[in-house]
Every structure is written in C-alpha cells, then in structure tokens.
C-alpha cells in the first residue's frame, strides 16, 4: 500500500476522476461505490416491506465495509423513499442515475414501481436487483434486471410434490379469491402445478373480496371428498376457511395447502388451532437452519431489536450479491462490467441457501416446505428427505 507504484489503469482512473470531480484526493486510498437504495419507508403496507429491506441492506453494507471485504472499495447506500408511488420511483431512478451516478440500484419495493422505473435503469445500463418484487415476467424487462425475491411459481410445485409424497394426495379441490390479483395469480400457479403432477381436480370454488362466509363452498368441497384443499387466499381468508372447515366437520386427514400470502402471524391469530398442519412454501423463514441464516437473524436482531422477515433476508442477499459483483469488477463506476460480473455469480451461499441465476436472472433457490403449528403459532420446517 505504501509504495506508490501506480499501474497504468490506476493512473487512468485517477486522471479520469480528477477530470470529473475535484475530490479525487481520496480516490487513491478508498474508492466509494455509490448504490441507489430505493425502498418505500412510507406509503402504507408497502412500508412494512420497504423498511425491512432497507435495514437489512444497510446492515449488509456496514458488515462488508467493516470487514474490508472489498479491500479499498467502500459501499455507500443512497436511500430514497418513493412512498409506494411509482411516479416518485421514476423520478428517483432518474436522479440516482443522472445526478448521483450510482453504479447499481437495489429495489424498488413494489412490482408496480419496478415496471415503471426499471426500464430507465435498463436503458442507462445500470443493474437493478429487486428483493421484494414477485410479479411474473419482471426480469423480462431487460438484461440489467435481477431479483432475489422468489415468486410463487418457483415455490408451489415443490410444496405440492411434498404433500403428494408424504400424504399420498390424489384428489384436490381449489378455492381462491376471484377479484384480487395476488390470489388469482396464486391460483393460476396452483392449478398449473396440479395439472403437471397429474392430480385429479375434483372442484374449484371461489369467493369475492370481503366475503367471510365460506360454508356453502366448503360444504360443496366436502361432498367432493378431496384429499387436499389448496388455498389461493389472503391470510385472513385462509384463517376463516380453516376454521369453518373444522366447524363443518372436515376430516382431519384432509390436508390444507396454502400460498405465500398465508405465511403470516395473522393466520394463527385468526385460525387458532385450526391452522395446525397447513402446508406452505417459502424461500426463507426465520427458523431456517443454516449458519449463514442464523448469523443474519442474530445480527439483524442485535442492530434493530426486531426480527427480520422474508423481504429482509432477500434484501440482505441482494446486497451481498452486488458487493461480490463489485469485488469481481474491481471498479466503482463501470456499471456494465458490474452487471456482467453479477450475472457470472453462481453457487452463491446466501441467507436463503445456495443461490444461482436462472436464464432470466431470477434467483434459483431450493424452496422450504413449512408446516403450521397452531399451538406455538409458528411455521416449522417440514422433514424433507
């Protein structure tokens, strides 16, 4: 470090930096990689996901900087709150790219915002990693768009296969919310998985948002004698369905299989013991038994005094993936090189487990099958073999 033998590239870098800005004095010792962090910290329920991701990403950057993982490169997060308003997201992306000259962007919180703002980054050649967007076809917007959030269609088939193997399920009935994009999307994925596994589909029932009486649908389903009932529902609705099924005298042997939206403490609050045995799938859960995940949960709790959720975990992995790409690029301004290095990462050991990219730059990770424990009000990992 002390010897001042400058390589040709360093000379060029410094020269370039001097030409660009007046503060190139520090470029010699530390280089700063500016990273846009676009997470909603206001704007209703989106803020719940946004704050978790922002905190987890800032935790990751602090750890990486403290450990000097990138040697002379320091990561600097420039956070901006879009208030869950996609017009704001577009403005923020433009400012981060044109004014702040970030090398990459982490976010945004909502899929809707991503569809509005990501094309700007794509055009400017700035890599984006989403950690809470789960809408289909998100990464098809362009080759600079990546994501660590795992959509339903990567999780549900594994869950269903588990249920078929362990419980010998042959006949299924499905119930879903007719007028909600989230529940409809879950239902489409579920239906496809049922067909692909060659299960017999004995009935499909639906309901509308705000419905609380499911007894007519459930009575009909009971008559069809399915081995499992598949729920494309929000947590509140799943809870009501589980409860009313018990009240109608559903056989205990009938398995309920839920979707991503059912993974919520609300399910247990509302369903009580009726939530016992419900099977769901997730890319991560707090009790996931891996050293990397346990260390993350402990560090997050220590720094923020609360438990991380799935979005925090996905954000944390996104931050480490980006850091690895910058390390490999050994450059803090070349966003195209950073993108290529990011795409080249495979076998990354993250909080979610072993990571890779699909052809469409979606993270591929082994889904975890979880089973509801109504008594202690948590999901526990299913014994997979």
């Amino acid at each position, binding site marked *: 470090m002390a010897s001042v033998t400058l390589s040709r590239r360093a000379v060029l870098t410094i020269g370039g930096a001097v030409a660009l800005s007046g503060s190139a004095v520090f470029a010699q010792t530390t280089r700063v990689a500016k990273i846009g962090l676009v997470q909603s910290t206001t704007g209703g329920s989106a803020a719940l996901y946004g704050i978790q991701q922002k905190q987890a990403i800032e935790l990751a950057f602090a750890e990486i900087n403290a450990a000097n993982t990138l040697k002379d490169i320091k990561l600097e997060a420039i956070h901006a709150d879009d208030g869950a308003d996609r017009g704001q997201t577009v403005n923020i992306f433009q400012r981060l790219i044109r004014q702040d000259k970030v090398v990459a962007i982490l976010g945004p919180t909502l899929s809707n915002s991503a569809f509005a703002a990501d094309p700007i980054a794509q055009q400017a050649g700035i890599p984006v990693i989403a950690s809470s967007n789960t809408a289909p076809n998100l990464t098809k917007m362009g080759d600079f768009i990546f994501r660590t959030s795992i959509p339903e269609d990567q999780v549900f088939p594994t869950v269903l296969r588990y249920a078929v193997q362990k419980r010998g399920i042959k006949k299924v009935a499905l119930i879903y919310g007719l007028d909600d994009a989230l529940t409809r999307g879950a239902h489409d994925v579920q239906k496809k998985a049922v067909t692909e596994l060659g299960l017999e589909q004995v009935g499909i029932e639906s309901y*509308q948002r705000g419905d609380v009486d499911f007894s007519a649908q459930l009575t*009909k389903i009971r008559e069809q004698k399915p081995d499992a009932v598949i729920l494309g529902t929000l947590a509140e609705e799943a809870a009501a369905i589980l409860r009313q099924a018990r009240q109608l005298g559903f056989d205990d042997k009938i398995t309920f299989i839920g979707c991503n939206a059912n993974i919520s403490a609300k399910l247990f609050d509302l369903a009580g013991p009726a939530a016992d045995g419900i099977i769901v799938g997730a890319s991560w859960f707090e009790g996931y038994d891996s050293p990397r995940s346990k260390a993350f949960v402990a560090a997050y709790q220590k720094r923020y005094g609360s438990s991380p959720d799935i979005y925090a975990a996905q954000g944390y992995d996104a931050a480490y993936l980006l850091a690895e790409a910058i390390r490999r690029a050994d450059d803090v301004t070349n966003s195209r090189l950073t993108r290529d290095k990011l795409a080249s990462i495979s076998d990354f050991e993250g909080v979610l487990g072993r990571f890779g990219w699909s052809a469409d730059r979606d993270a591929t990770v082994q889904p975890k099958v979880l089973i509801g424990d109504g008594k202690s009000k948590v999901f526990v990992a299913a014994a997979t073999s």
Partner: protein
Amino acid sequence: MLVQQLVNGVSLGAIYAVFAIGFTLVFGVMNVLNLSQGAVFMWGAYVGLEVVRTLALPLPLAILAAATAAGLLGVLSEVLVFRPLQRRGAHRWMGMVGGLALARILIGLAQEIFGTQVVRYPDNALAGAALELLGARLQLLQIVAIGAALLMVIALAALLRYTNVGRAIRTVAFSENVARLVGVPVDRIRLMTFFVSGALAGGAGVLWSLLFQSVSPFMGDGILLKGLTVLILGGLGNIVGALVGGVLLGLVEVASVVVVGSGYRDAVGFGIVLLILLTRPTGLFATRETTRA
C-alpha cells in the same frame, strides 16, 4: 349435503333478517333510508368484542351491551342527521347522503381506534358447540342466530300490535301530522324507533362476527347492500317481509354457490332482486302504502 346447505343458508339469512328488520323499521316509520346502519352493525361487533375481551364478561352480556351501544348510535343518527335535516325541510334524498356521511365518520373512527386488521372474538364454548342432525352439523351459534331472528320478529310484531308504544309508532308511520294531532309524542317515538333499529343492527353485528369469526371496520359495507336487497325483496317497511326476505336471500346465495358456481354468488342474489322488482315492483310482501308498518 342438502340439509347442511339449508342450515348454512338459513343461518346466514337469519342474520340478514335481523339486520334488515332494523333497517325496514326506520324506513316504515319515518320513510327514511338510514345508510349508516352498516356502520352501526360494525360498531356493535366491536363493542361486543371489547366487552368480551377487555372486560371479560360473558357473551350474552356482550350482546346486550353491543345492542345498547348500537341503539344509542341509532339515536345519535336521528339527533345529528335526520332530525336537523327534517326540521330544515330537506328532501329525503339528503337524509340518505347524511346517513352515508355518518357511516364514513363511524368507519374512520373505528379505523383509528381499532386498526384496520381483521380480528376475531376469543374462543368460547358457545362458538365451538355443534350437534349432528340428519348428516348436517348444526352449530349452536347458528341455532342462536335463527332463534334470535325469530324472537325479534315476534317481539317486534307484538310490540307494534298490542302496546301503546306500538300503536304510537304505527300512528307516526301513518302520518306524523295525524300523530301530533292525536297527542303522540312524535319526537320521542322517532328516537325510540331509531334505538330499536340500531340495537337490532348491533345484535346482528355480534351474531355475524361470532359465526364468521371476522371483525373489521369495513364489515358493514357488504351487509348494507344485503340489507337494502332484503328491504326491497320483502317490501319496503314490512317486518315479516324482511324476515322472509332475509332468509330467502341467504338461501339464494347458498343455492347459487351449489347450482351456478361461487363466482356468481352476488350476481345471482342481486339478479333475483331485479327479477322480483320487474314482476312485483312493491316487493314480495308489499302492503298498501297507507297501511305500512
């Protein structure tokens, strides 16, 4: 399965009926459509919940407390909205908008105080009990709902027919001016009617949230539409009509799930109302305008 679906439909319809009877009573007596009724229903559910959860009182007391509180809300709607509007000679359409405004205020308050998350009543023996009958499971709560609906109709009918208060209410329903001429304290009778109407909504709110385990600030919106449907089905201002209309709507909704498919539940329900209106514009049980209530 048929028996079970009948049970499902009748118990759902019984709650519709209790709600609609309060609705139709105010309409019959005052010719006013009180659109804050849904919000009063929701507040009844929350008052009952707080009584059970915070004060740890038994369920029957919770229903009583909820009905009383909701009755007072009904009185409030007369004092704050309907009476001032009538005194100022407002058109009765304005009463509808006034009631709607009151409903929004009540919903906003509930959101602030209780939050927007769905909550439920704590587990209790009443909610879990059930008996097997002809291969169907009849929950104790469903019996309570059906029984309560019947009881309320009989009590209300008796009140209207055999008591002085009842006679006074019917006189006001016939004509406020005539009632004043014969010395009926019209203002007091109106307040009483609003109290009974609110209490019925509040009682229905508790029954509903016990049966379906779901309490939220927005729970009144759906039942308001169902109440309107029943009101029209049974004939405006007709109490027996509201009972029969309520049960009928419950059965139609369940039948539409069984026969047509669950996606069309509301479409079938409201479609039937349209059909009935086309063939019988005054509802199934319409009495002549002059002898209403």
